[in-house]
């Protein structure tokens, strides 16, 4: 009897533990050991310095800032290769008494959400994208007013509440298509496509004339397909497109709509087995970079942030980094091609920070003078800064690169709210997302009817949540 009871108790424990995956402690167990915390060694110093720094309240003269600040971020690669440590030297030249420590996370978005359940989530952090805009003041200190700061920085709209700005841009990317110039030229393509039909014709031409894979879906890495979403607003050519979806209550998918242009193209490419790799479920993101550089892969849809990574890979395998080309999504509107630039991770300061002023100084410096965005080949978040070299092709092609307009105050955060409530989640990569449904229908050769059905489902779910939330 006793042993039986024990067994049942053990089993109940096991079951409860499965459930516990969901609660706060569980979120990091998802990746089971994949989390790398690089700054483990630095933590002891942080704790030791903690008392001393709280004792000296910040607020003395600007250069006299002192204390230790902890920066939490997602770039494990930049922690490991010493880029972050090098950045600190530049910061310490201005503020010699501030000690900066870094901690980076492979699974940043989930880990930071867990840490933010307490007050202890570093001093300067990359602003979690899942956080609702209206909740920003609950966690972060204000950098100043929107009216002031928007003169200087792009992309503050989605990170401002009641005229106060809670995050600054670390950099941004343009939307478009990465292509191997040499392969495209070898296929005999002389002019870049200006319509989606031409784009697919080019891919077919590459299939016929070269041995490269025309389009690499990178389907196994779930996030790769979300890159197509970044093309949508660019394909509309309208800086108010997302706002109009709410005010004019248009469907996402209708014949010729930006969503239809983008995902219809995706569907047609994925549905033609000759245009993409053989086995989409066993693709490899790291492995595709050298393969692309060597001309084995011709085309991929990726944000412009990818350019520098592919150029680095080209150098590593002895290929020519100049072959890494970037073009806008070829959906021309009245003969003009557009691309939209949008922010990468933003940076915020923990409002509970013991060294608020030092943390503020660091975040402002990082987003203004650190040169981080330039080094990464990203678009600077500063207005008037030169375009990165990686996007020089846009000038040659006469592409109009625009930034989305802020949406009216009463609609702030509504787009995200509808996206999550309806589970349409245009930026999402849940396994039930319409992007995966379309891709798999295409892989299975189910034809355009399947696409139309999924599009109709998306429209219905979106409209239902939109009408419920906007009234």
């Amino acid at each position: 009897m006793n042993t039986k009871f024990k067994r049942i108790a053990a089993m109940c424990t096991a079951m409860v533990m499965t459930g516990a995956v969901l609660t706060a402690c569980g979120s990091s167990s998802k990746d089971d050991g994949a989390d790398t915390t690089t700054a483990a060694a630095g933590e002891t110093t942080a704790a030791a310095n903690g008392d001393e720094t709280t004792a000296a309240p910040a607020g003395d003269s600007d250069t006299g800032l002192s204390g230790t600040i902890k920066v939490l971020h997602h770039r494990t690669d930049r922690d490991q290769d010493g880029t972050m440590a090098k950045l600190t030297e530049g910061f310490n030249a201005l503020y010699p008494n501030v000690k900066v420590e870094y901690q980076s996370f492979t699974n940043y978005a989930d880990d930071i959400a867990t840490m933010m359940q307490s007050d202890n989530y570093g001093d300067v952090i990359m602003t979690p994208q899942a956080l609702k805009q209206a909740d920003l003041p609950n966690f972060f200190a204000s950098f100043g007013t929107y009216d002031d700061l928007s003169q200087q920085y792009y992309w503050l709209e989605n990170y401002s509440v009641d005229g106060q700005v809670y995050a600054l841009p670390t950099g941004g990317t343009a939307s478009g298509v990465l292509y191997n110039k040499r392969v495209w030229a070898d296929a005999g393509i002389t002019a870049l496509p200006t319509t989606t039909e031409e784009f697919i014709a080019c891919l077919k031409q590459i299939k016929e004339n070269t041995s490269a894979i025309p389009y690499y879906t990178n389907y196994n890495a779930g996030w790769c397909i979300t890159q197509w979403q970044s093309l949508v607003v660019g394909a509309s050519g309208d800086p108010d497109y997302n706002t109009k979806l709410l005010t004019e209550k248009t469907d996402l998918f209708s014949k010729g709509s930006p969503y239809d242009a983008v995902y219809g193209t995706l569907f047609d490419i994925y549905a033609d087995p000759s245009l993409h790799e053989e086995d989409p479920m066993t693709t490899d993101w790291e492995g595709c970079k050298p393969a692309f550089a060597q001309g084995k892969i011709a085309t991929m849809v990726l944000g412009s942030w990818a350019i520098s990574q592919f150029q680095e890979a080209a150098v590593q395998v002895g290929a020519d980094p100049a072959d890494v080309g970037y073009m806008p999504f070829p959906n021309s509107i009245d003969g003009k091609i557009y691309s939209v630039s949008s922010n990468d991770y933003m940076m915020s300061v923990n409002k509970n920070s013991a060294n608020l002023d030092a943390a503020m100084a660091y975040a402002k410096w990082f987003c203004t003078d650190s040169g981080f965005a330039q080094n990464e080949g990203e678009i600077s978040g500063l207005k008037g800064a030169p375009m990165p070299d990686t996007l020089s092709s846009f000038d040659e092609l006469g592409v109009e690169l625009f930034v989305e307009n802020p949406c009216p105050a009463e609609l702030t955060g509504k787009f995200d709210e509808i996206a999550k409530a309806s589970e349409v989640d245009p930026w999402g990569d849940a396994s039930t997302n319409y992007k995966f449904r379309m891709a798999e229908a295409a892989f299975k050769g189910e034809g355009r009817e399947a696409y139309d059905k999924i599009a109709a489902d998306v429209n219905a779910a979106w409209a239902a949540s939109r009408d419920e939330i906007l009234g």
Partner: protein
Amino acid sequence: MTKKNITAERLASRNKLSKAYMEKMITVCLFLLIPTLLLVIFTYIPAAEMVKFSFEERDQFGQNVKFVGLENYKTVFTTPEYFAAFKNSIYYLCGSFIQLGLALFIATILCSKIRFANFFKGVAFFPYMINTVAVALIFRRFFQKGDGITNTDGTLNSIITLFGGDPVKFLSTEGLVNICLVFVSIWRYIGFDIVMFIGAIQSISPDIYEAADLDGANRFQVFRYIIAPGIRPIILLQMILAVKGAISVYEIPFIVTGGRFGSSTFVIQTTETAFKFQKVGLASAMAVVLFLIIVVVTVIQKLVLKEDK
């Protein structure tokens, strides 16, 4: 000896006894303190919190908390898509019974007098110790169908072509993908079953085997009449765990395919609801429902199998 003396002695011995008893109790409590504390902090409190969450509407950051009563449960039970994911559990259920049979077979062999038994035990248990992320990489490569440009055929397809067959897209074909994942799951967890069975088999007194030997019992008879009844409680426990595992399968499909190509499960949907759609309340309700389903299934299983005392 006077009467008084006896009483005093008795009292003294009683005191001594109770002192020893107290000491024993303190030792037991101290030993139990840390595991109990860990269990309460990392299991029962989070689980209780989760039950509380299931009556609320909240996001991943613990913001915008709103009490909604049974609303989340209503959503769970009125969304048939959530329960459709349980059909994939059938694959894993079948797989786990194959796994148990195979584990029992291997454990029996390893307990008989064979050479390098310890080495084979190690081999069988090894996959259980590999990091799941590594498992995903291994099997992506194992099931790969190559295109001859960026990659070549994986292990399985190489063997198939060696015997003149055509390579198959194992992971990119709906239906096939679940069978592959069940295979991975068996590969990974069978070592644990084997070790459990070996432990149980070895706890059977060697005298009984000797007696059976003298009576001229063959291998099958030894298994049928000595081993099987001897480890019955462990077999029943493993069966319950197998069913529980099949209903709540998560790790392998999540890391190998991310639930795509029709390989999603209820728990994958639950985590996505929480962390992709920011509906932590609803996801907690899904987890509670899963917990209740497992309890019900286990009770039914217990009644059907009726363990004898």
